[in-house]
């Protein structure tokens, strides 16, 4: 049926955009706002109990045999893991850029590398819990730092799984516009996982030394 009236013809507009104009980019960003609030509140709890409830920070561990007096979390392994996590951002930036050129080969390579590094970070993270010198149930300080590290571990697992499924998709089905967009949104999540860990690392490892 043909009809005559004033129209705005949008058929010439692109069907997919690859940046912040996409609703999915916004959905992801708002999700990260929620998660950032979550971490910010946990960090607030950390400082709150420091100021209100503890005289010695970090508290000595009397449950350990022999008792440990300086319980500041160890540095070497966590620092190494922080380094690996930050290095993993590089192949992701590469894949992200390659999406704009629809360079499927570069995307595959960058994503695969990022997934492998992500798995390494997760594996080392399990060893990192030892460097906290406490079990989560020892005291409030321990509960808070375990929750911070554990919640970030959850994000590492979820983000790495997301990266993995994007990698498999690109290998199996190739890189169309929509999935180039999806890879770019996934990349934002991964950047966030890296950057938020820098802040949490400074809080937990620095807070035990400087407060």
């Amino acid at each position: 049926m043909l009809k005559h009236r004033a129209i705005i013809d949008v058929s010439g507009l692109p069907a997919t955009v690859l940046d912040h104009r996409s609703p999915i980019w916004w959905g992801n960003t708002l999700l990260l706002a929620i998660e950032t609030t979550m971490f910010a509140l946990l960090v607030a709890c950390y400082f709150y109990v420091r100021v209100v409830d503890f005289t010695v920070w970090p508290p000595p561990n009397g449950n350990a045999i022999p008792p440990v007096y300086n319980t500041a979390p160890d540095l070497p392994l966590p620092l190494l893991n922080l380094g690996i996590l930050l290095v993993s951002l590089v192949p992701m930036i590469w894949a992200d850029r390659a999406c704009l050129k629809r360079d499927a080969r570069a995307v595959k390579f960058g994503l695969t590398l990022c997934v492998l590094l992500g798995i390494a970070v997760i594996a080392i993270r399990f060893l990192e819990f030892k460097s906290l010198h406490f079990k989560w149930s020892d005291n409030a300080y321990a509960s808070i730092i375990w929750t911070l590290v554990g919640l970030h571990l959850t994000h590492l697992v979820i983000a790495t799984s997301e990266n993995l499924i994007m990698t498999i998709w690109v290998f199996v089905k190739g890189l169309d516009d929509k999935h180039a967009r999806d890879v770019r949104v996934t990349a934002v999540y991964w950047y966030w996982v890296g950057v938020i860990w820098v802040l949490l690392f400074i809080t937990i490892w620095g807070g035990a030394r400087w407060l």
Partner: protein
Amino acid sequence: MDDSEKISRLSATPTRVSEQWFEEPHAEQLDHVWSPPRGFLGWLVTTNHKDIGRRYIVTAFIFFLLAGILALMMRIQLARPENHFLNPDVYNQIFTTHGTAMMFLFAVPIMEGFGLYFVPLMIGTRNVAFPRMNAFGYFVYLFGGLMLFGGLLTNTGPDAGWFAYVPLSGPQFSPGHRVDIWADMITLTEIPALVGAVEIITTVFKQRAPGMSLNRIPLFVWAQVITSFMVLFAMPSIMLASGALAMDRLKNVNTHFFNVAEGGDALLWQHLFWFFGHPEVYIIFIPGTGFVSTIVETFSRRKMFGYPAMVLSLIATAFIGFGLWVHHMFATPLPKLGQAFFTGASMLIAIPSGIQIFCWIATLATGKPKLKIPLLWVLGFIVVFVLGGMTGIVLASMSIDIQVHDTFFVVAHFHYVLIGGAVFPLFGALHYWFPKWTGRMLNRALAQWQFWLFFIGFNLTFFPMHILGFHGMTRRIYTYLPETGWGNLNLLATIGAATMGISVLLFLINVAVSRKSGALAGENPWGGSTLEWMTASPPPSYNFLHLPTVAGRCPAWENTPETPVVSGLSTTEREVLTTTILDAVPEHRYEISPDSIWPLVLALVVGLDLLWMIFTPWAYPIGVFVGLVVLAFWFWRGNEPGWVVEGIMSTPPKSKTEQLALKTEDAKAPSHH
């Protein structure tokens, strides 16, 4: 990119207004693309925002009725001194479940339900940005609600009050699983609140009709967006608090967030709870102001007075709302400076609320108001809410607050602001939009009875509580002695509560009768100003045959047949138009996801997993793993064009040419569901 480049890019946009012949979309074709499959399966997989929004509203209203019955039981118990209708243990479970259900299962979800139903209609699009997430949110919410009332029915109802203060709610003083049910239900019901917030913000930012720049967004939509931002930053606090409480309580985990003996802090709970809890009040109230603004504008027959002041007041309320939480903690030892700050902030928030009230009165005074039922509820709202606001100013003063803390004066205050600020506008909204949902009008005489019974019943119930509070009657006591002399006022309150109950019953009767046999409404029975009145009642699955454009703040009053419509979107895929955030200039076409069974599956995984988490921490890693597997399916299958479970669910939509061919020989079109 510098500014001149940006402007040239906008002006070089391939969209332009032109007068021309174009292919009119077929209503049946659009309906075919946008409808869920028929039958039970369709009910499970639908992602249409109107289905989901209506479900939220109906479910939340049922929880409102259930929690209202609990309130009546409490009033019967308190009607006379030394009554034995309820024992203290049951009474504790009932007042906790009443408060929890009213806040988490009724007030927030029903407001969000209105948003999810009407925001896409009011901004002129076909669905929300992430329809499957939307469906997921609803099922999780339903699961959380069933969990709470399931607990109550099995004598495992939470009994530590709706704000579950530690140490009472901690493992030492609340053994058993009652508080666990509370903590996990809270976590569950905040997920849909957050999902809905992301939906609404994204949809309003990106999917508004061309021409609907920020200064033309309806106030209802502004209210929903601002509320959603508050949800984004308030709800994580309660999720963290309830999660930490659950971990403190869980055997084999035993964290010490709130355990004073191990360096934890009981006041930390109060801070986390009220950092959510105070914004929560505005999360409930701001959508109510959206209803009021809409109704006032329609029945005053003029554009809202002071639109910029209204929007800025809402934004100011949202900001100040995050700086008030400590006024719930005036009875705790706090630094003097903190007390002074929060007293000041609590008084400050009266200013933006006052500005809004004056704008509504100015609109009514300078318009030609027609006293229809929705407006009656708005007038009731203004009276009741102003009364509640006045006791609010009284309570903001720390010295007075200490005197009446934990008395019935506080109970009276927050019922005046919450029922006044949310339930009165809500009933107005239910009456106002009932014709849009059903195509039929509610019975006016019955509605008038309902309003007056509710208004009188409400004041009979809650006004005496001010006096009871002054006389020293504390909250949450299950009975009192005859010598206190509280009996008569309590009896009066119980009579008032029964009157409110009858009023709600009349509403149910009205709905049941009118949806079948009410007068036909047509597109725009009230002469409303917003876009939802420019489509059929009830709206078709695709909302608008042509996506509209707008040239002013009140399109239903201003648009003419010459106003351009959008053309060129796909009629074979679920495609919507995205526009720029500030000026709503067309930007790109966006294909939104199809119906899917995976939201239901994921919601079941999340719900069952949180239930399981009451018993073992292993539910957490296992839940994450299973959830990720489900999400992988969701992503992998859902991104394919067409349908999720081909063959079982429906035939995949035909290509455009095939369908047009089918149209010509209409009789032989068996593939349409």
